[in-house]
């Protein structure tokens, strides 16, 4: 069975260490080493990306986001999960 990127919310999420990223004025540009994936993240996406440092799972990241932005923990968790799935599908997560 395929494991979900968030592992049910507890497994720590870590950015692919070979991916390049740079945050400009709150927006992140991220790129895979081979250039096959180049994306710009909005401020919320950039904050989530920044929090994916291997020390937090989906629930913990969602908790930070719901504190910093006007959203509920449940909505934040759903957004973080969807975002993690998108990143994982492009090999942007370890």
């Amino acid at each position, binding site marked *: 069975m395929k494991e979900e990127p968030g592992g049910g919310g507890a497994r720590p999420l870590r950015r692919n260490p070979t991916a390049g990223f740079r945050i400009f004025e709150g*927006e992140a*540009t991220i790129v895979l080493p*081979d250039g096959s994936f180049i994306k710009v993240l909005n401020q919320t996406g950039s904050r989530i990306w920044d929090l994916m440092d291997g020390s937090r799972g989906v629930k913990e990241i969602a908790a930070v986001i719901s504190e910093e932005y006007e959203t509920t923990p449940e909505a934040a968790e759903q957004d973080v999960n969807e975002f993690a799935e998108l990143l994982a599908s492009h090999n942007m997560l370890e």
Partner: protein
Amino acid sequence: MRQPALSSERLIENLARELDFHPTADFFTRNLKRRGTGSARIAIAGLGLRLEGLAREDEIRIRSRYGVFVRDDESSAQDVRVTVVEAQVPAFLRPRSDPQGAPELYRLEQFSRGSRLFAYSYDFAGWYDTPSRQGQLALTATGDEALHRSIENYLRSVTAHRVIAEGGFVLHGSGLVRNGRAHVFFGPSGSGKTTVTLLSEAEVVLSDDLVLIREGAHGFEACSVPFRGVYREPPQSDEAFPMAGLYRLIQHPADSLERLSPARGAAELLGSLPFVMEGGGGSRALEVVGRAVQSVPVYRLRFRKSPEFWALLSEET
């Protein structure tokens, strides 16, 4: 009636016409003979590269084609030395067609082994080693057009990697100098780079295909490279010009200019960097491009096939 069987030599010959030959690093350990004793030094944005082992006719053609970029008198310890040899094989890649029968535009393959970058296409295979500043270029063809195409595409790849290591980048774009400042228009094939070049009045045309951007003493500047697109005039100058702006071209029924955030500008530029994104270069490219977008404005320019878009640029810059 059944066809007569082909001899084994004929079969091998026919197969050889169809198949690509992908050289490995070991290919270059063969005893490949130099094509001659000629040489020429080309300098691009101050980065020297000496081609050695040229046949006499190769040297004449190169000196004629690269004009103001041939600088034999300015040798430097930082020069790259490339030995030109006979490939001793009929071809490397074979031109392909798409399912509709249209021939491919061009194909170049690259791979790395340690610090050595390998590049090959139809009529050449070569390598370039960054730390030792050495390279080798094996040519299969002696015809004028094939020779120029082979040498030029090898030099494009080497130049792009060399410039990014030095903190600049080579952009798939056209460059025009107006009022002493460089406007660089970029985007994929068909976005309008050559159209902009042909429509516009300019003091200097840097290129309609590739422009070199680097950080100078007074900020980012744009320079010509001696490589040509459809616009057949050779570059008129190898001088560097301060940057006015970078414009991602989109052909559209109405002209408009939209300034991009640095993050979006960087992403657009990364999508127009030839050669260097493969083989793990994405992070380095982002680092270099990231510096440029913090000092040079990046726009999305929607334009009709008319020079009237310049009015928008004049207002903005």
